[in-house]
């Protein structure tokens, strides 16, 4: 999946400037849209937009794992669930402020991710896919366990109180949650970009590109692979926590393999390893089912599957490929003027 990078890499200096300006303009436009849209739409749409951001974080976390270290996971729903439950339990049983539950969820999931990442160290390719698939399939049952029922609410799950906007801001709860989620999304995006550009990120990408070469360069393979798992799990946990707060509810059957599939799908659709693609992938998994369910109940899985097939056959690099086409068009346009 690196052919695109290769074709882009040898760009001349002048073209790089154009590219920069094109993508900077694109970023500013997107940011303005993100800031302004809620002001013009109904509360239910705001709620959906918030969920879109939440899933975008989860997809970004998976992108960080796959794009960063080349490992991939069909089990992200498990960390998402863990984050959601951590946040819900802290809020409902310990009266912790919702903002503070986010770092707590991140921490819990980081630890869980590292713990799962340790055995996963010895797995690659199909084996890792299998182990994480098993994790996602088993998670709902773990959440239903009788022993934890007083905390988790068992099959019933937990209801979470929706927070009000702070400082008596005159905006609805939904709108406040949207802006709060947007802030968290931007922070995580910035953190991810910085991480990939850091020493750690470069070490992780060296692993992705060639394990043997990376270890010859003195990269500590186990450390970085486990770290990648942990960080990815932590960000996924934050997404889960936000999701719980926004939906105001956690229950085991909300975190089945279907969710893991959706997150994986979102990554493929957005373009593997391309962080901005997470927004496109998330839009796909949030809005496509809505449209499909309107046509016929239960249709969304089929539409998901069919569109996924279209993506892997027609645009195997996902939204990234589409963006590159767009950029090429924009460049042409700028040159001609």
């Amino acid at each position, binding site marked *: 999946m690196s052919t695109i990078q290769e074709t882009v890499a040898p760009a001349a200096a002048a073209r790089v400037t154009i590219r920069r300006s094109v993508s900077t303009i694109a970023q500013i436009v997107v940011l303005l849209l993100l800031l302004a849209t809620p002001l013009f739409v109904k509360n239910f749409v705001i709620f959906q937009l918030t969920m879109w951001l939440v899933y975008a974080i989860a997809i970004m976390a998976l992108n960080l794992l796959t794009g960063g270290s080349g490992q991939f996971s069909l089990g992200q729903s498990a960390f998402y669930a863990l984050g959601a439950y951590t946040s819900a339990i802290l809020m409902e049983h310990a009266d912790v402020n919702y903002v503070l539950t986010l770092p707590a969820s991140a921490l819990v999931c980081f630890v869980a991710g590292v713990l799962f990442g340790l055995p996963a160290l010895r797995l690659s390719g199909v084996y890792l896919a299998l182990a994480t698939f098993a994790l996602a399939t088993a998670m709902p049952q773990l959440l239903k366990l009788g022993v934890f029922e007083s905390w988790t609410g068992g099959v019933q799950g937990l209801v979470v109180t929706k927070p009000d906007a702070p400082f008596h801001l005159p905006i609805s709860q939904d709108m406040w949650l949207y802006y709060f989620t947007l802030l968290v999304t931007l922070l995580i995006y910035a953190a991810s970009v910085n991480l990939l550009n850091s020493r750690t990120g470069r070490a992780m990408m060296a692993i992705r590109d060639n394990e043997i070469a990376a270890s010859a360069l003195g990269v500590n393979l186990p450390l970085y692979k486990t770290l990648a798992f942990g960080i990815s799990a932590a960000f996924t946990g934050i997404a889960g926590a936000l999701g719980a707060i926004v939906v105001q509810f956690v229950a085991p059957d909300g975190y089945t393999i279907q969710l893991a599939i959706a997150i994986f799908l979102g990554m493929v659709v957005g373009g593997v390893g391309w962080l901005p693609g997470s927004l496109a992938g998330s839009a796909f998994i949030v809005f496509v089912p809505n449209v499909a369910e309107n046509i016929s109940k239960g249709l969304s899985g089929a539409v998901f*599957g069919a569109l996924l097939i279209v993506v*892997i056959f027609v645009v195997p690099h996902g939204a990234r490929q589409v963006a590159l086409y767009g950029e090429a068009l924009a460049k042409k346009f700028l040159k001609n003027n």
Partner: protein
Amino acid sequence: MELFVNQVLAGIATGAIYACMALAVVMIYQAIDHLNFAQGEMAMFSTFIAWQLIQWGVPYWIAFVLTLAISFAGGIIIERLLFKPLAHAPILTHVAGFIALFAIINSVAGLTWDFTIKQFPSPFGSRPFLGSQLISTHQAGMIGVTLVLLLMLYGFFRFTRIGLAMRAAASLPESARLVGINVGWMIALGWGMASAIGAIAGMLIAPVVFLEPNMMGGILLYGFASAVLGGLSSPFGAVIGGFLVGIFENLVGTYIPGVGNELKLPIALALIVTVLVVKPNGLFGRTVVQRV
């Protein structure tokens, strides 16, 4: 003691199902080096086809055979349309393909037959087997059908030309081409057979777990656990793995307190991770260089 024997026999009966699922998984793994995450959904869909035929008044065994034929053809069609074009694609794309298949089949089954659970008949009834309280006739039937299937498969791979060609294609595709074997069609045939074997598993387990679109999720996971335990490169190992896992599951559920149905899936998870980490080639698999 009675309880122990009882649980072992019950374990062998469910193990028979896991063995079938594991066998289906291994057949495709041997052919294309990938795990079919949609194997369970394919089996579920086949079972619905059988149910539909029976609803239309087709006698059980005719419906059984028809279902096998339809599943076989379906498996081949899926391979030709979806996975043959992906042959050289990276693993992530393959996984995406399996996931797409999973979603489509699950959803189409739900749309066609809805999500309410349905009774599925057993041709063996559920009386005590041979007057003994140890296992029911249906459980005995599950074991019997699986054993017959295994014998037939053994004969097929051991004594027929096409079975030999399939083995050759799976072990060394390049050399197989050089003796004139159409490797692509052997892979398709593997898919057809995997699909039909999965259909058998589905039809045998449906009277026990009831028929509904999500019925195979846990069973596939146990199928994977069995395949991994036996060694993904060994059909024989997959079968042994299936029976071992079935027995293990039943004994753990009986003798370790607090581990009933509640922990069924986490046990499978633990089993898969443990085997993959401790003995990645399983009990009978040949050592392979790990694919990166």
